[in-house]
């Protein structure tokens, strides 16, 4: 019997996930479904409609008086209760959870309401009165560096808040001696993988101990735990963070929950009850986090044979309005790998961090890699084109040579293992590159726009906690050297000998529980189903460290190792106990099939659960020096993660996988749509722990990369208005847009991790946008292209910019010209059955005007020709109350008047102007009007598609009411055969009649 024991390890097998049953039946409790204490209150946030505005005053008295409201907090209140957040660089840039003094981006929280339910809390937002003084905003990162640009932080005096220069090898010499210098500007847009579940925070202040108990779908890194504790002014042991086992995606974004954690803690302290907040989608898109957009100017020193001898980078990374820890991580996390997959010994770098009036940046999957590789791989493509070489030959010529591992890259990365040449050749053969080239040639012969792109990427995993210290000069770093990355996992055996595992990896869909069950099962001779894995984390009960969390492909080369170490400890302990009964030395025992047995005599065996349980039941019989019970924690920090050296070299990550991609794309000449004909992606991620899950990571990264390359961008107007507040505006790829890539694997184990595994979750996010960019440039024979490569952008490249349709003819509102904020323009005309004098009097009489303005609750005359009104307006389902101010000028009674002013409310703000002209005609007054309105805030962000129609409706309603005010209802203006009044027909012509 015993020789039939199946000892094939579970690690390496594509076993199905232990997580799936509970997820598929809908019984998994995500954060919003975690039980709450009776009496828990709910928070809603008032957010700035302006990209840059001084907060002159906030009146919260009306909101506080509303039913169910228990507290309203403003930024000013926060400064009295908490400290500003610590930031990574030394600059006077104060950041609190709510805007203090001024708001710096659309969507920035300005006040928070706590009420008995979310509906009531949102009701009360409308009653908070904020007076803003709007300032000029700066959106473009390059313009933000120029003198005279609006400044976000007056105390700093410059939007560029950090500049560092680095040099490795002899870059100047290499450039001087180069045959050619080839340059490229590679802009990378703002985007985010936008997890389907947003932020959730549940915070409870415990007055007796002055401590906080928080449950949240936070994802670490726990470097921000001390940041939160310091802001709250409590020791970190009194900020208990609990993270549930299931989280609806993270992709890096959910580290940026931390300002909201602090905010809810303070709300709970003020309200005296637990407070819960659930982020909605608009809040997420406008204010959670975006990957920093970057402008990279990159140059290569090259020889005529295609050898690259040096790179020079000028990276301008845009962090939006606030520098939240661990920003500017994306600029430094890839630092050691700035020479990509290439053997290039000379490197010069300038890094600048710039602040603009946009959502603060954050960690997003890829974490600086997509921006960097888009520049490097686009440049390598250019090198080939300029030298008349094959792009793949240029890649091959420069790859880090096989046999040189571990390889120290110029800026300090220590590539652990690999054979890039073999990976490339295998992919060329197994993916059918020659066939793809034939397809291209045939397509081109048919007159089609077809291109092939390539990219190679070194994919880092498990960040060195010291990577950000390179932002400081070496002298300063020496005082406080930082490095390492600690991981923890615990294996527990209970009195009945059953095994459970906890770990510090905070999964968000990656299947960590499954992989940990495989690792522990192998070590203890059990099956994955025998292992209960609980992925919740509780900082007051579990082992954790600053590196704890789920980011930078950390799991497969860190927490797995800690779990393995913990399982080995358990195995050793159990083996020692068993060795007494079995009378076999512990090191000659094997574990399999739930049994422990002598290697040379499998019949001499004991059940695992009996031996393990005995550590609880009969502690007296344990070997002399052994502690009773079995609960072992594995802790690990790889020695290779050293602090940066004095030459600014840093091994930014522990393991480095390799990715080689190529693809064929065909571009529709008429629509500009990029069709991916074939996509091949080769990965060497070391040992694969579970190939099914590894492929899942590749598919997922690839899918988002398609979004980055073709669809996704957080769009802003020049005035800082946010234009992508819904999933109808921020376009995520869906099933028809994401082809299935051909995934190939090669497994060169890491020499620095006991299991040989490397990361795999980020590679395609780095390789695919560059690969598709190269293919599109190849298809169109163009030098540069910016992402996302939308049909309109590509067709503009094919056909040159389209000329806008002639103005004047169109009565409908015209869309805004590209590059400005949400601007709507329109004009129209109507006839009112009253004399111009009467129409004029109506327009000037506050009472009558109040009855004419749609949704007007009150209208006061505040000056000779100035009015203030309180109106309700809405676009689609987004409705709200606004304060409007209207000034009349250029008055020529009763012929013409100019109206200007603005509206402001929680849903947004607008300013605009219009002209109204009255002319006496037979049967009344002919009215003509035109208007231009600029809109910002929530309405601009979510209502883009509906705004023009809505403006027409509101203006139509205005005239409809004017008609009835001056007696139009009874006007015998004639009826159509169908019984419609003329007015109804006119209104219908405007698209507003019923």
């Amino acid at each position: 019997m015993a020789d039939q024991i199946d000892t094939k390890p579970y690690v390496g097998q594509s076993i199905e996930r232990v997580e799936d049953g509970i997820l598929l039946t809908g019984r998994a409790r995500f954060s919003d479904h975690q039980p709450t204490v009776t009496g828990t209150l709910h928070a809603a946030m008032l957010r700035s409609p302006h990209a840059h505005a001084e907060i002159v005053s906030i009146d919260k008295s009306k909101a506080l008086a509303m039913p169910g409201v228990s507290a309203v907090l403003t930024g000013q209140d926060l400064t009295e209760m908490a400290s500003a957040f610590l930031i990574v660089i030394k600059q006077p840039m104060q950041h609190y959870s709510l805007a203090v003094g001024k708001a710096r981006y659309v969507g920035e929280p300005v006040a928070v309401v706590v009420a008995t339910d979310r509906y009531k809390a949102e009701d009360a937002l409308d009653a908070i009165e904020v007076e803003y003084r709007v300032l000029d905003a700066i959106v473009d990162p390059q313009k933000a560096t120029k003198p005279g640009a609006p400044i976000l932080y007056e105390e700093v005096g410059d939007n560029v808040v950090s500049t560092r220069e680095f040099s490795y090898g002899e870059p100047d010499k290499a450039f001087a001696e180069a045959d050619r210098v080839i340059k490229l500007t590679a802009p990378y847009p703002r985007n985010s993988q936008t997890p389907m579940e947003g932020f959730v925070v549940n915070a409870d202040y415990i007055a007796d101990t002055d401590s906080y108990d928080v449950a949240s779908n936070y994802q670490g890194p726990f470097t921000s735990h001390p940041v939160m504790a310091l802001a709250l002014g409590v020791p970190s042991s009194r900020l208990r963070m609990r993270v549930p086992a299931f989280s609806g995606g993270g992709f890096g974004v959910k580290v940026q929950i931390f300002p909201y954690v602090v905010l809810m803690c303070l709300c709970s302290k003020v309200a005296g009850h637990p407070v819960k907040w659930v982020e909605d989608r608009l809040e997420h898109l406008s204010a959670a986090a975006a990957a920093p957009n970057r402008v990279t100017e990159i140059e290569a020193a090259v020889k005529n044979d295609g050898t690259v001898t040096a790179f020079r980078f000028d990276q301008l990374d845009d962090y939006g309005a606030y520098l939240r820890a661990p920003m500017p991580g994306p600029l430094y996390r890839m630092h050691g790998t700035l020479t990509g997959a290439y053997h290039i010994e000379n490197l010069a770098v300038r890094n600048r961090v710039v602040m603009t009036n946009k959502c603060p940046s954050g960690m997003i999957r890829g974490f600086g890699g997509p921006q960097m590789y888009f520049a490097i791989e686009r440049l390598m493509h250019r090198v080939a084109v300029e030298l008349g070489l094959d792009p793949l030959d240029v890649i091959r010529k420069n790859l880090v040579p096989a046999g040189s591992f571990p390889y120290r890259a110029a800026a300090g990365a220590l590539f652990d293992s690999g054979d890039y040449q073999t990976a490339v050749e295998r992919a060329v053969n197994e993916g059918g590159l020659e066939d793809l080239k034939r397809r291209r040639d045939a397509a081109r012969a048919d007159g089609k726009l077809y291109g092939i792109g390539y990219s190679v990427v070194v994919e880092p995993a498990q960040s060195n906690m010291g990577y950000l210290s390179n932002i400081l000069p070496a002298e300063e770093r020496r005082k406080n050297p930082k490095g390492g990355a600690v991981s923890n996992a615990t294996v527990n055996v209970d009195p009945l000998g059953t095994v459970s595992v906890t770990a510090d990896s905070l999964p968000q869909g990656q299947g960590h529980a499954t992989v940990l069950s495989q690792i522990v099962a192998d070590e203890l001779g059990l099956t994955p189903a025998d292992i209960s894995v609980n992925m919740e984390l509780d900082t007051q009960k579990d082992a954790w460290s600053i590196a704890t969390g789920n980011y930078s492909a950390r799991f497969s080369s860190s927490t797995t190792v800690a779990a393995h170490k913990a399982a080995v400890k358990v195995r050793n302990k159990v083996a020692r106990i068993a060795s007494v009964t079995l009378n076999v030395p512990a090191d000659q025992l094997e574990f399999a099939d739930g049994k422990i047995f002598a290697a040379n005599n499998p019949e001499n065996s004991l059940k695992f659960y009996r031996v393990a349980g005995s550590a609880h039941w009969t502690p007296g019989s344990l070997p002399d020096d052994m502690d009773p019970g079995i609960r072992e924690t594995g802790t690990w920090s790889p020695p290779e993660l050293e602090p940066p050296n004095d030459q600014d070299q840093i091994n930014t990550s522990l393991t480095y996988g390799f990715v080689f991609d190529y693809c064929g794309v065909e571009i529709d000449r008429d629509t500009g749509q990029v069709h991916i004909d074939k996509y091949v992606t080769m990965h060497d991620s070391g040992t694969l722990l579970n190939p099914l899950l590894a492929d899942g990571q590749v598919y997922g990264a690839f899918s988002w990369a398609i979004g980055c390359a073709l669809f996704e961008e957080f769009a802003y107007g020049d005035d800082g208005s946010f234009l992508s507040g819904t999933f109808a505006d921020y376009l995520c790829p869906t099933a028809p847009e994401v082809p299935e890539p051909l995934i190939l694997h090669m497994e060169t184990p890491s020499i620095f991790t006991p299991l040989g595994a490397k990361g795999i979750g980020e590679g395609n996010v780095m390789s695919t946008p560059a690969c598709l960019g190269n293919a599109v440039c190849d298809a169109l024979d163009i030098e540069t292209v910016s992402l996302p490569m939308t049909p309109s952008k590509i067709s503009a490249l094919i056909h040159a910019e389209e000329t806008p349709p002639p103005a004047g003819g169109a009565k409908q509102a015209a869309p805004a010209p590209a590059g400005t904020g949400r601007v709507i323009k329109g004009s129209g005309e109507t006839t009112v059955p009253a004399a111009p004098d009467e129409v004029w009097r109506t327009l000037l009489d506050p009472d009558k005007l109040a009855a004419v303005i749609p949704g007007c609750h009150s209208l006061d005359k505040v000056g000779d020709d100035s009015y203030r009104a309180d109106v309700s307006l809405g676009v689609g389902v987004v409705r709200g109350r606004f304060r409007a101010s209207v000034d009349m000028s250029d008055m020529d009674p009763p012929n013409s008047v100019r109206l200007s002013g603005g509206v402001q409310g929680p849903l947004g703000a607008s300013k605009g102007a219009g002209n109204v002209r009255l002319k006496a005609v037979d049967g009344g007054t002919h009215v003509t009007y035109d208007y231009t309105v600029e809109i910002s805030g929530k309405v601009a962000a979510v209502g883009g598609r509906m705004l023009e129609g809505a403006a027409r409706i509101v203006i139509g309603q205005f005239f409809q009411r004017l008609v009835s005010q001056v007696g139009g209802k009874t006007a015998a203006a004639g009826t159509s055969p169908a019984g419609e009044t003329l007015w109804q027909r006119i209104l219908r012509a405007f698209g507003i009649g019923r």
Partner: protein
Amino acid sequence: MSELSGTARHNISFTLNGETVSGSAEPRMLLTDFLNYELGLTGNHVGCEHGVCGACTLLIDDNPERGCLTFAVQVDGRDVKTVESLAGREGDLNDLQLAFRKHHALQCGYCTPGVLMSLTAYLEHTPEPNEEELRDMLSGHICRCTGYVGMVKAALDVVEQRKAKA
């Protein structure tokens, strides 16, 4: 539909996963909020609250609908099914759920209930779709984790299985 007062709570009663449930809701309360907060269901998820992502999809009188675009009072007297209705009483997964597990069609699992409900209804009236049709149908859902590959494979697998059984 009769007119409801905007501020009062209204009694509603409907069939949820085969059982009659009742409660009261203001007219503005979303069905998703009612299911989650009033009835304590955990399977229905909200991803956007504006009808685009599909995470909240459930069946009303066997038609797939967005829970986030439905008010609770609208389902008074009707039949509502959520993902909780798919597995057997003992938690045994149905063929679609099993295929999702086999083909790794879910990662975080947040979008999954909505996708399962759409597919359930779709495969009822389109039992033999091809891949293109399936992908087209799935375009009503956003999944940020999986790249949709597993979902397509799982659904095609179920189509084959059901065909073999028929």
